[in-house]
């Protein structure tokens, strides 16, 4: 188990390094000049040069790359201020430390992702299982038709409609907003309810279909037939035996999904104005804010890698054959 973890962490470090490098060099392939963007309308060549030096853009690209890496491991100095390791630099736009901004925004994204996950996994897997067990009945057909609709609507569309109906007209749900959990748990939950439901609605549909298909496969497996031949009740057949085969593909897909969500649910965060990583990423790209883009990409890649390690651990719990 120890060797497994060390291997995975070394692999993760390598992946992060590659992702960072690609992002860094891709940035310099973009047409916008970040110095000119922050220079404003009354831009003289002197100010432009000054800004370039401030942002570190006067150095060659490989030097900037080198300084960034040194900064991550040893910290670096910007003019008079010192940025201690791990230093991800300062935003080109508002000059805030990138790491602090990311840490500030991450709880919103985490709250959104985990809350929605609980709903869509719970609802999606349950509907999928029921549909598989009642295969061919009206329950199966109607839930699958609904889920096809659910999987087809987009969050922008559903979110706006749901907000208008459920919040503005019927006043069933509180206004969607992000309040930190530590300050006001009730407000945190209330404010995120609509974003959770919207995101979960689309996702649950996908998981319902996936679970149904894999449960039907699992019910056809030889060992499930054996369990029936042993005289076990349907409840034991389904709840103790069949689901374990059915849940593996769900875990696989969710592992990828969670990585994506933790890297920022861009559309949901934008639709409901939640200050998470996804919104940060959109703004950073729009402003050619290299340190912020790099920071967002790194946090998204880290989330993806960690989610994958978590999935491998869950596999080992579900299936003794993959235990090391």
């Amino acid at each position: 188990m120890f060797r497994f973890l060390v291997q995975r962490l070394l692999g993760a470090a390598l992946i992060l390094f590659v992702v960072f490098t690609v992002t860094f060099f891709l940035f310099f392939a973009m047409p916008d000049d970040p110095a000119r963007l922050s220079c404003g309308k009354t831009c003289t060549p002197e100010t432009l040069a000054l800004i370039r030096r401030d942002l570190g853009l006067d150095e060659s690209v490989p030097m900037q790359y080198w300084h960034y890496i040194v900064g991550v491991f040893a910290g670096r100095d910007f003019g008079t201020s010192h940025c201690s390791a791990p230093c991800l630099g300062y935003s080109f736009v508002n000059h805030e430390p990138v790491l602090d901004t990311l840490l500030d925004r991450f709880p919103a994204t985490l709250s959104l992702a985990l809350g929605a996950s609980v709903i869509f996994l719970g609802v999606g897997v349950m509907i999928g299982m029921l549909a598989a067990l009642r295969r061919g009945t009206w329950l199966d057909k109607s839930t699958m038709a609904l889920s096809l609709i659910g999987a087809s609507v987009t969050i922008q569309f559903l979110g706006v409609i749901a907000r208008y109906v459920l919040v503005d007209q019927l006043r069933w749900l509180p206004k969607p907003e992000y309040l930190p959990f530590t300050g006001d748990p009730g407000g945190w939950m209330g404010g995120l309810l609509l974003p959770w439901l919207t995101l979960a609605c689309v996702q649950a549909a996908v998981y319902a279909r996936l679970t149904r298909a894999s449960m039907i496969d699992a019910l056809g497996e030889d060992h499930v037939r054996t369990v029936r031949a042993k005289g076990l009740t349907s409840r034991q057949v389904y709840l103790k035996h069949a689901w374990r085969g059915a849940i593996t593909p769900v875990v696989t897909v969710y592992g990828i999904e969670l990585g994506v969500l933790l890297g920022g649910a861009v559309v949901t965060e934008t639709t409901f104005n939640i200050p998470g990583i996804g919104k940060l990423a959109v703004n950073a790209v729009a402003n050619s804010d290299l340190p912020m883009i790099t920071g967002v990409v790194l946090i998204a890649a880290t989330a993806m890698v960690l989610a994958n390690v978590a999935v491998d651990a869950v596999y080992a719990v579900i299936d003794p054959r993959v235990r090391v």
Partner: protein
Amino acid sequence: MTSPLLAVRDLRVRFATEGGVVKAVDGVSFDVERGRTLGIVGESGSGKSVTNLTLLGLHNPARTTVEGSAVLDGTELVGASERTLRDLRGQRVSMVFQDPLTALSPYYTVGAQIVETYRRHTGAGRREALDRAIEMLDRVGIPQAARRAREYPHLFSGGMRQRAMIAMALVCEPDLLIADEPTTALDVTVQAQILDLLGELQAQLGTAIILVTHDLGVVADVADEVLVMYAGRAVELGPATRVLETPKHPYTRGLLASVPRLSDPLDRPLRPVPGAPPSLLAPPPGCAFHPRCDQVIAGPGSPCRTRAPVLVGVGDSGHEAACHLEAGAGAAGVGSAERERERAQVPDAREGGKNP
């Protein structure tokens, strides 16, 4: 004479498929006596596995119709409620499947899977059930049974897995064990060990066995009676020695001739039964075997092409064959009146063609 443990009469199983109705089993009758072994032989698709899955209600009920009768010690199995069948399964009738790697659950330890069966039918406590599971594993010849009970099936070898499967099937000491190709997935030396084990346990526990196989060598070793199936019908039935030594149906003869023998010259080519099994969606009219039969009765009005033969007695001691050659050879009068009634074959293969 006491009534048989299992009496199957005119069992018919049909599947509705996209292409039409498949007559997987078409009027099969046989008895299984207590403590005896019936070998059911046939090619893939001959209906031998379906017959047994149907007895326990393990087929997919949505697209299957089952007719006829199968009485296990006074209980009718055809049309019995799921609850009735569930109580029988694993307790009075157990199954051993072909591939023990896929038939055992990969997610639970071998011990836990046996414990589960035992507790389901006896209501025993965990500790007691585990002791019983270890006792059974020991009995089927698994060394260090207490330790092995805590391991998962993938850590077992093929032979050990099948032993564990047999331990699980016999943990409640059932009256009938249905073994569906139990040795097909194993190599030959292990195969012999498993067959010996089944024989030993049968002698100790008095279990009747239905052994489904395509391997005539296996049948010769262990079966008391043999049922040969072809295209969903019984073509020959009788005591194993009679059927194997004096086969009456051309198909059985073909099967026996196809078995290579060690005493044969090395360069003797294999002699398979020519042709391929018929489609069960549209079986040939008359005797389903006639297109492959080298002794088919010639002529335009040949009964082989127009009427399906039924089992008639050939010789003594319950040896029966379904072949017009035998029926025409003066054997009439031996079989019961029921078996005299030859069914005119009607081309009804597509009768359910509109089924989903």
